């Protein structure tokens, strides 16, 4: 891009905050009552990580893969891309994440959620924040309940809970699985920041804590 230094972050924002948050309202109305199912799936993930029954890795990866594919299609591709053409290029990344998760889950000894170090426990906390705290945010930021972001329906809590669960995981593919949710949260945080939305720090903080937890684990080794 020419004279790129004259551009500010806001110059890349294509839509108003009103349009952005109404998009969640419309998406929630269209997907209700799937929220109950995705939240139940999220809680099941946490229980699977805690209990570690046989083949838990397979089931966790399968659920996450399904939800990434669903959010990528139903929210990013079918809704968000309409007001932000750049998202048309991002949505396939959610598909790729679904594919990677599916491969990780199906491969023999691919994924086990057996890490109980500090990073792993912090991960579970992050996962619960994404599941429980995220849908409760709207009144804190002066928005209607109908604009709530719910795990498995909206991208941010889906990415956050996924990162949390992944912090408890071991297996060859694991490092690869962090990239897309982290990059998504960076993009989402910057978008909210450009919108002047006070919620912007949340996705950025979740990403930063995840990276810090991974770094801590490396140092501890």
């Amino acid at each position, binding site marked *: 891009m*020419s*004279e790129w230094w*004259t551009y500010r972050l806001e110059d890349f*924002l*294509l*839509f*108003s905050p*009103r*349009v952005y948050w*109404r*998009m969640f309202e*419309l998406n929630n109305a269209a997907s209700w009552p799937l929220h109950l199912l995705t939240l139940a799936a999220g809680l099941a993930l946490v229980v699977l990580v805690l209990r570690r029954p046989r083949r838990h890795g397979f089931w966790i990866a399968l659920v996450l893969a399904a939800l990434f594919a669903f959010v990528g299609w139903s929210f990013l591709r079918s*809704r968000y891309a*309409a*007001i*932000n*053409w750049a998202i048309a290029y991002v949505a396939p990344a959610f598909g790729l994440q679904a594919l990677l998760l599916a491969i990780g889950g199906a491969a023999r000894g691919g994924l086990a959620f057996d890490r109980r170090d500090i990073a792993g426990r912090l991960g579970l906390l992050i996962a619960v924040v994404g599941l429980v705290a995220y849908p409760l945010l709207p009144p804190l930021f002066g928005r209607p309940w109908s604009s709530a972001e719910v795990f498995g329906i909206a991208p941010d809590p889906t990415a956050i809970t996924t990162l949390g669960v992944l912090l408890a995981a071991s297996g060859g593919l694991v490092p690869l699985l962090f990239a897309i949710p982290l990059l998504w949260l960076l993009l989402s945080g910057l978008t909210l920041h450009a919108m002047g939305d006070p919620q912007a720090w949340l996705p950025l903080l979740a990403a930063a804590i995840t990276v810090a937890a991974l770094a801590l684990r490396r140092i501890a080794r």
Partner: protein
Amino acid sequence: MMIITRRTFVKAAAASGAALVLPAAAPGAPPAPVMRAVPSSGEMLPAVGLGTWITFNVGDDPVLRDECAEVIAAFFAAGGRMIDSSPMYGSSQPVIGYGLEKLGRPEALFSAEKVWTSSAGDGPAQIKQSRRFWGVPRFDLVQVHNLVAWETHLETLFAMKADGRIRYVGITTSEGRRHDLFEQIMRAHPLDFVQLTYNVVDREAEERLLPLAAERGMAVIVNRPFQQGALTRQLQGETLPDWAAEIGAGTWAQFILKFILSHPSVTVAIPATTRVDHVRENVMAATGPLPDAAMRERMAAYVRDL
């Protein structure tokens, strides 16, 4: 039989060089906005148009789509004609198409589109897609957005104009970017329109581009009249000077628009809005008196000193 619409009437009047006599407005109807000639054709256009960046990018939201359609309806009802968009503006193009369809395809429309793709070969396909979104048989004006791949796109656009597939060719920039190259292109090519940023605080265009447009016989579209709302927001808390009444400016938005429109090179300013009352206010800024040179300096000084 030839049906004489307001548009063909205006065109014919302009082409024949006849004095512009509009049919008497119905009693109680708002006064008609001042008309400006496109130098390359003599076609007359109302001096305030409608931008669509951000404001019309509402996706598939049915409520907001209807709100945009109401803004378009109020724009035409006030006497506006030019609507400006770009493939860069998300869903703005289909939203314009929705509004136009809902209004029964107003004849007054002057469509100002852009071509915006770095792979120059994609230009024709993109213009075709934009036409589908608007639902128009041809665009009045297509501009090379921000000079992206301008050489090839200009070739395409001049060829389309020669074939009658578009009526006018233009280029755009904003916020003072690439004025040197912009000037070179203006000097080298027979453009009908140029689009740039100009307002009471962003006055760089006065130095070279605006005089050059007059010299080269190019129409000027002014974008970002309100600095994307930053300027109107900033002035909101300030009192409008008493003497603003002398030029018929009842609000800061009208004050700014009147400053822009009073530059002799300016043809149309294209503020964007989501609000029916604002679109009326903006088109109304093109009615009544406009400031003279001395008043313009007074206006600029006043805003500068706030």
